[in-house]
């Protein structure tokens, strides 16, 4: 326990059981059944892992289904960016620095892990500042840091770029394929062909962008949004708050809005310093999401002012346009239209050891989380709801 806050208390079983009791009652009142369950989407991959890792799915009633959204930054990175990262790693006098998440994602032919095994200089770092240190120590090399992440991660890379500019470390560059959340939620809310009754909004992205960022989608799409923390009790409490809004909408006593369960960390306006850094260092563009397509205004690349830190402007990285996808339905899964067991490859040709699609490779991909942590799919009951 770190001084004043006892974080272990966020995992107490009695409180969990109490919350599950409320969820059961509210699901019933909202009219959720196993035929037409109330569908809540957790947009963040860290939520997907926490839900599965703590075995929460099997604690929930059959009338409630948790769908995994496109919440893992690695999974949504288009194949051409993976191929560019791998190509950069094989160029002379280049050092690629990256978070561990990108190492095993299969490109069209290779992965960073396999090119490293053949001698490419690929370094795994904990922080972008470590990558800047690599650039300081290797002035004769061009360091390319892989710019993957949502609004929790992109501002700290923006701060690193500003530090590089201040110190004149010109051999530090970033290959930018950051994604942003709010506009993506609007797209997800508009996806036909599957019911969606609420968003479990990403806790740490919201620390940066503030909970007010979800007001447009809640209002325009009439869909409840609750910003939730990552401890099991946070998640269960977030589900209770969402169900309370669903019941209010169905009983016409209220409308969709934005609520904050993760109140110890998230404010309405967010971290304005971080937002200022992003506005200064990045420019917004219409980004491609792997398996989903282009989603307007959801990409961050480098602004004109910091163009010299853009690896694509400093290196001639030309890679052939990737041929079609590998026949996996990761896109459908990320849109919440399917659960991993609906995919023919899942658990057969596609396993964590021999991943076919990105959602199985990344530790936060919905398929990897489902394969590793869900009890039900092995016994033919994908929701695992019979496992009480």
């Amino acid at each position, binding site marked *: *326990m*770190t*001084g*004043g*806050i*006892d*974080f272990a*208390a*966020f995992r*107490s079983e*009695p*409180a969990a*059981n*109490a*919350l599950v*009791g*409320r969820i059961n009652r509210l699901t019933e009142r909202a009219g959720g059944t196993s035929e037409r369950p109330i569908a809540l989407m957790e*947009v*963040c*991959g*860290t*939520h997907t892992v926490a839900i599965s890792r703590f075995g929460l799915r099997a604690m929930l009633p059959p009338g409630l289904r948790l769908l995994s959204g496109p*919440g*893992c*930054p690695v999974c949504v990175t288009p194949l051409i960016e993976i191929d560019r990262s791998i190509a950069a790693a094989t160029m002379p006098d280049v050092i690629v620095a990256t*978070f561990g998440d990108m190492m095993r994602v299969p490109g069209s032919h290779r992965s960073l892990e396999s090119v490293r095994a053949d001698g490419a200089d690929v370094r795994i770092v*904990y*922080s*972008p*500042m*470590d990558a800047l240190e690599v650039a300081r120590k290797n002035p004769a090399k061009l360091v390319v840091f892989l710019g993957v*992440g*949502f609004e*929790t*991660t992109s*501002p*700290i890379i923006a*701060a690193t770029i*500003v*530090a590089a500019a201040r110190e004149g470390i010109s051999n530090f560059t970033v290959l930018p394929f950051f994604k942003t959340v709010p506009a993506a939620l609007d797209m997800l809310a508009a996806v036909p062909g599957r019911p969606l009754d609420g968003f479990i909004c*990403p806790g*740490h*992205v919201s*620390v*940066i962008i503030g909970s007010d960022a979800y007001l447009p989608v809640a209002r325009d799409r009439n869909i409840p949004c609750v910003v939730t923390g990552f401890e099991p*009790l*946070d998640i269960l*409490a977030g589900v209770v708050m969402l169900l309370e809004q669903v019941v209010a909408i169905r009983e016409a006593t209220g409308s969709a809005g934005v609520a904050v*369960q993760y*109140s*110890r*960390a*998230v404010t309405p306006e967010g*971290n304005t*310093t*971080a937002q200022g*850094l992003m506005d200064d260092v990045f420019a917004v563009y219409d980004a491609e999401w792997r398996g989903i397509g282009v989603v307007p205004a959801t990409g961050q690349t480098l602004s004109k002012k910091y163009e010299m830190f853009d690896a694509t402007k400093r290196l001639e990285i030309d890679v052939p346009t990737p041929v079609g996808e590998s026949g996996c339905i990761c896109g459908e899964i990320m849109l919440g239209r399917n659960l991993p067991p609906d995919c023919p490859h899942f658990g057969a040709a596609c396993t964590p050891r021999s991943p076919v699609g990105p959602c199985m490779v990344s530790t*936060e991909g919905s398929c990897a989380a489902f394969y590793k942590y869900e009890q039900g799919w092995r016994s033919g009951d994908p929701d695992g709801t019979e496992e009480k």
Partner: protein
Amino acid sequence: MCLAVPGRILEVEGTKGRVDFNGISREADLTLLPDAEAGDYVLVHAGFAIQRLDEAEARETLKLFGELAEALEQEDADRSDRESS
């Protein structure tokens, strides 16, 4: 989407701070929290402090969870009383 871990700032030096995580201490960059001070609880993501945690809110949340648990235990106790009487 993003792992961030709560810790407590031990000391601040310019834009850097020493943060304690249950007995581990590590330097964290405070550029995103210009007015963070020693003693603050912060969330750290990939070496950067990205938010100051509101201790009062944290205790409020924990109090709520505690009350829920007690309410359930009370319910169970009442039910077993009814069943046994």
